[in-house]
């Protein structure tokens, strides 16, 4: 098997006397989807926040593309190629798809060969191209993203991440708060990312989603790794038992 794109060893994070994470290990390869499961307070959020630079680990090591890394903040992680997509998606609802994909990094052109101006045509064109690779149909790209459905908005957030060459995408409860058809779209999106050889970590409470798309399942319980299973070799009962600690 190839070198893992992300490798976590003995990761430990304490808040005062509370051990939010203790000695967590896992590997993640390109083209692989890892589901992060666990009860509330199990340490799922702490784990992804420690990987993407919101928190800094007290002990342990994170290796990204073979290099030991410690990101000072989420921006540093994003620039390195680890993008976190939160539930709220961080989209500016009043801007169109292109503007959101390029937010903070807009391409410029010259208006009448003279004045610097936003290159909206290019933003729309490149956004269209990247959204199409996700196999998601957007009715129109020139409308504010508030007009889009939940799944389409996910596609915009994911499209932004892959446009800027994220290699690892961390998704926090991507299917929560969506209707069933929209959940299916998001599952399809994650499959698309896998096909594009991206590595995906996603947090979910929904076992159906996990079994639909994940290659492996990492179960956390009280900050520790309760177990790691290949999806093909386990079932819902076993995962739930790992989550509640009766396995």
């Amino acid at each position, binding site marked *: 098997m190839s070198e893992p794109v992300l490798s976590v060893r003995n990761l430990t994070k304490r808040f005062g006397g509370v051990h939010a994470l203790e000695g967590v290990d896992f590997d993640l390869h390109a083209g692989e989807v890892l589901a992060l499961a666990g009860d509330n307070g199990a340490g799922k959020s702490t784990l992804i926040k420690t990987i993407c630079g919101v928190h800094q680990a007290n002990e342990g090591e994170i290796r990204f593309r073979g290099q030991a890394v410690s990101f000072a903040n989420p921006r540093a992680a994003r620039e390195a190629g680890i993008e976190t997509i939160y539930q709220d998606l*961080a989209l500016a609802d009043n801007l169109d798809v292109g*503007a959101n994909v390029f937010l903070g990094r807009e391409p410029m052109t010259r208006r009448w060969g003279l004045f610097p101006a*936003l290159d909206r045509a290019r933003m729309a064109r490149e956004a269209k191209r990247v959204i199409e690779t996700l196999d998601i149909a957007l*009715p129109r790209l020139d409308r*504010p993203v508030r*007009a889009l459905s939940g799944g389409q908005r996910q596609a915009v957030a994911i499209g932004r991440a892959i446009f800027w060459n994220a290699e690892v995408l961390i998704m926090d409860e991507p299917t929560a708060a969506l209707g069933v058809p929209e959940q299916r779209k998001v599952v399809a999106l994650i499959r698309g990312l896998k096909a594009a050889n991206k590595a995906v970590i996603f947090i979910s409470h929904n076992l159906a989603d996990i079994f639909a798309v994940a290659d492996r399942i990492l179960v956390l319980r009280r900050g520790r790794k309760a177990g790691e299973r290949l999806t093909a070799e386990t079932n819902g009962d076993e995962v739930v038992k790992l989550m509640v600690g009766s396995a």
Partner: protein
Amino acid sequence: MSVTTEIGEPVSRPLLAALAGAWAWIFLVFLLGFFEIWARLAYHASFVLNGFNLQSIAVFTAQPFLLAVGQTFVIIAGGIDLSVGFTMGLAAVILAQAVRLADPLLGPWLGVLAGFLAALVAVAIPGLINGLLVSRLKVPPFIGTLGMYGVAEGAGYLAAGGTTVPVSNPVLFWLGNGTLFGVPAPVVVTLVVLAVLHYVLSQTRYGQYTYAIGGNRQAAVRAGIDVRRHTELLYLLSAFCAGIGGCIYTARFSAGAAQAGEPLLLDSIAAVVIGGASLFGGSGTIIGTLIGALIIAVIQYGLVFIDVAPFWQFIAVGIVIVVSVLVDQSRLALTSGVRTDE
């Protein structure tokens, strides 16, 4: 009745949506038509095809518009600047005092230039403080700029010695009352400000980030935009626009007065809102604000023109503000499929 479908696809009523989107234009044309017909019937004269009327409306529009144009940026970013009226008054007084001092020493041209510099430096102070309060100290914009409203008012009256400050300077007088190819000089200045700021808002990253901050501040932060610095510059811009308005006031009336902008504050906010901006941030345009300012000016001037008691102006403008917000809400529902809890 719900106007949205389950997955938030916008309902397709493009004609209604387009009408709602262009309502301010339609209303402006309607107003002009109304006064035109009235003028033809009552005075056998034209309201629109009358150079004096047009010049007067343009000048009537220019003053609140200069406050409103900076306000547009602030409101799009989700803030509000209540201090612009007295910031304008402060500039008016400082310009008058500075020209009185500098004119005898430097002559009329350099004297006016020194006056403008003094006025712009003076208004930069409230602008910067507003920006710091809102961006760094997290004071709600309504409160921070309300505080500055009082401070700028007091500073203006103190600088004026509690009275109006007369000033006599030929260059300044021309800037307030002269014309360039038939266009009043204050209107020329306003058109330049309009062109520059329309360009900044619609074509530059600065404008784009103004919308992004108003749409989702957190998203702007995560995208790496320096939101705090951007916000500081917004309030500075608003203060400069008000300062230009104050300079034009002094030029027009050959006197600086601390209360110059007091009645214009609400007109400026009204112009922004009528122009389609949301006070929750995220939407608005400079052209929309211009239409809003024109609507207010046409109502004010037109009612005087047809000899209606001037107090009707307040009622008319008040109704227009509320109607414009109602139309805007229905437009949002028509074009974007926003789900509401009601």
